[in-house]
């Protein structure tokens, strides 16, 4: 796969280009340059390490939106078996921006729900860039209720710039659809694990993000507003997005520090797209261990713990 490099990865891109060139020459000529290639590869790896060791929030936001980043369906294919997609909200339409269905994880039945972005232009449009409309959230709710009836744990995967801001979406009650999911997920009588795999865009992300565990892939982001949106409102200039990203603290490490999420799942060097196979393994292992833990708890305890935790969100002073 041709890698698509981001701005801050340019030094790595140049090295990789040089390696490619040498390989090409190597095929042609008789001279042995494998030693040189190995040396450059090592250099590229250590350069990547040093660049990725000190990524800022804005750079991580770029990684979370990387055009080659694995999306939900890429993980479903690698982690689950017997996946059967289930469609539609039974009232208005099927929203392709949200994918849902039953599957097995190491043989155990589960319900999967998540946003799906598109890879090429046609799919991007079909998936509406992963921005759900109310019918998407209502489909998600229907599937969660199905999961509850059949005692299937719910695994959600968050990857959206946000709920779609469109005329039809408003007419059909975007706010109500999101609000209802928040309430339903808080009470769902089955274990719920939510994982941010890419972009966690505000209410549109939270609408499938309330559960017993909130996990984030290392280079995913979760924010109340996009850095660009925040910058244009508070700094009056979208160009201050990098500063806004920093101030909002949208990265997995920062949110873990703040106690807002439960765990960070490490990504391969250079990000999930550099080694989707390995990323999928990491994610599967984590989901399995969390699921084992949640399954061992009586349902009452599970629900009470979930509720208590939701009520603890927030920081304030209380005067005596």
């Amino acid at each position, binding site marked *: 796969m041709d890698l698509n490099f981001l701005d801050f990865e340019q030094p790595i891109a140049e090295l990789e280009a040089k390696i490619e060139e040498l390989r090409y020459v190597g095929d042609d000529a008789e001279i042995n340059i494998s030693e040189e290639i190995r040396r450059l590869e090592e250099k590229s790896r250590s350069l990547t390490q040093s660049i990725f060791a000190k990524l800022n929030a804005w750079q991580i936001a770029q990684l979370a939106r990387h055009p080659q980043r694995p999306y939900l369906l890429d993980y479903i294919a690698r982690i689950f078996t017997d996946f059967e997609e289930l469609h539609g909200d039974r009232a208005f339409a099927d929203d392709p921006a949200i994918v849902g269905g039953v599957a097995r994880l190491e043989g155990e039945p589960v319900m999967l729900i998540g946003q799906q972005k598109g890879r090429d232009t046609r799919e991007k449009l079909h998936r509406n860039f992963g921005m759900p409309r109310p019918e998407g959230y209502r489909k998600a709710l229907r599937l969660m209720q199905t999961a509850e009836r059949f005692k299937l744990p719910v695994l959600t995967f968050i990857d959206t710039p946000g709920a779609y801001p469109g005329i039809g979406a*408003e007419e059909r009650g975007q706010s109500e659809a999101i609000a209802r999911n928040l309430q339903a997920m808080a009470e769902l009588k089955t274990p719920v694990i939510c994982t941010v795999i890419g972009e966690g865009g505000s209410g549109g992300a939270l609408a499938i993000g309330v559960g017993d565990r909130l996990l984030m892939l290392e280079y995913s982001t979760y924010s109340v507003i996009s850095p660009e949106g925040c910058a244009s409102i508070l700094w009056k200039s979208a160009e201050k997005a990098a500063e806004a990203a920093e101030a909002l603290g949208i990265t997995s490490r920062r949110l873990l520090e703040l106690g807002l999420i439960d765990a960070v799942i490490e990504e391969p060097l250079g990000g999930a797209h550099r080694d989707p196979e390995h990323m999928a393994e990491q994610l599967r292992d984590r989901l399995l261990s969390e699921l084992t833990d949640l399954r061992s708890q009586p349902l009452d305890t599970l629900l009470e713990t979930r509720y208590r935790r939701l009520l603890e969100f927030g920081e304030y002073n209380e005067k005596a």
Partner: protein
Amino acid sequence: MSWFEKLMPTRIRTEGGNKRTVPEGLWTKCDACASVIYRAELERNQEVCPKCGHHMRIRARRRLQAFLDEAGREELFSRIEPVDMLRFRDSKKYRDRLNQAQKGTGESDALIVMQGQVQGIPLVASAFDFAFMGGSMGSVVGERFVRAVNHCLERELPLVCFSASGGARMQEALFSLMQMAKTSAALGRMKQAGLPYISVMTDPTMGGVSASLAMLGDVHIAEPNALIGFAGPRVIEQTVRETLPEGFQRSEFLLEHGAIDMIVDRREMRDKVARLLGIFMHRSAS
């Protein structure tokens, strides 16, 4: 002091200061019909234009005072105060924005909760103060709201909330997003307990507040012509690149699309809410 005032005995002299306590501008112009209205009359009329019925924004404290019976109303949870947990700084520090909002409004945050009665029916009522950072929901709003819910659960009281908010408070970042989940979860307990929650949406009810506590009522009431929705009209316009239809995201539009039960004039809110709660709470007809 003019020569004429000097002639008057001090007892009858009106202090110059008195004049200045009258809020600047004895007269207000209605945004809708441009009529010039006597300020005191507008206040008596709960900020509704007596000429055209246009509902102007009203401060949260004034709203609750007008809504609740005078006897026995009491503010709750006002000791919960905001903190700048992230040391958030944009063009201004969050701390400075808070100070400024507190000085400017006289309130400590954007939600006020009171216990009281409406036409003799005991309840808890809360109201967003749009003047306080756009009525934005941060940790304090979320916590006060949840305490209001718990207060209702403990005493078997109904809850009424008047929203007026631009949405989540950006300066509290993900903490503010989580208030959506927190308030929605708490309202679930009201449902389980069979206690009524009436959500009154006023101008504006947008974003994170609309997509959580405002849209989870047993009854949804809106004031006339209030802007209510998830995404702001400008964001939508930029996304879809179309001009928005007339009356888009206004109360009448929401009623037509089935999102709310009714539109109620502010001056009739007490009657309407009392009647509804009387029925839900099985009180004998008055």
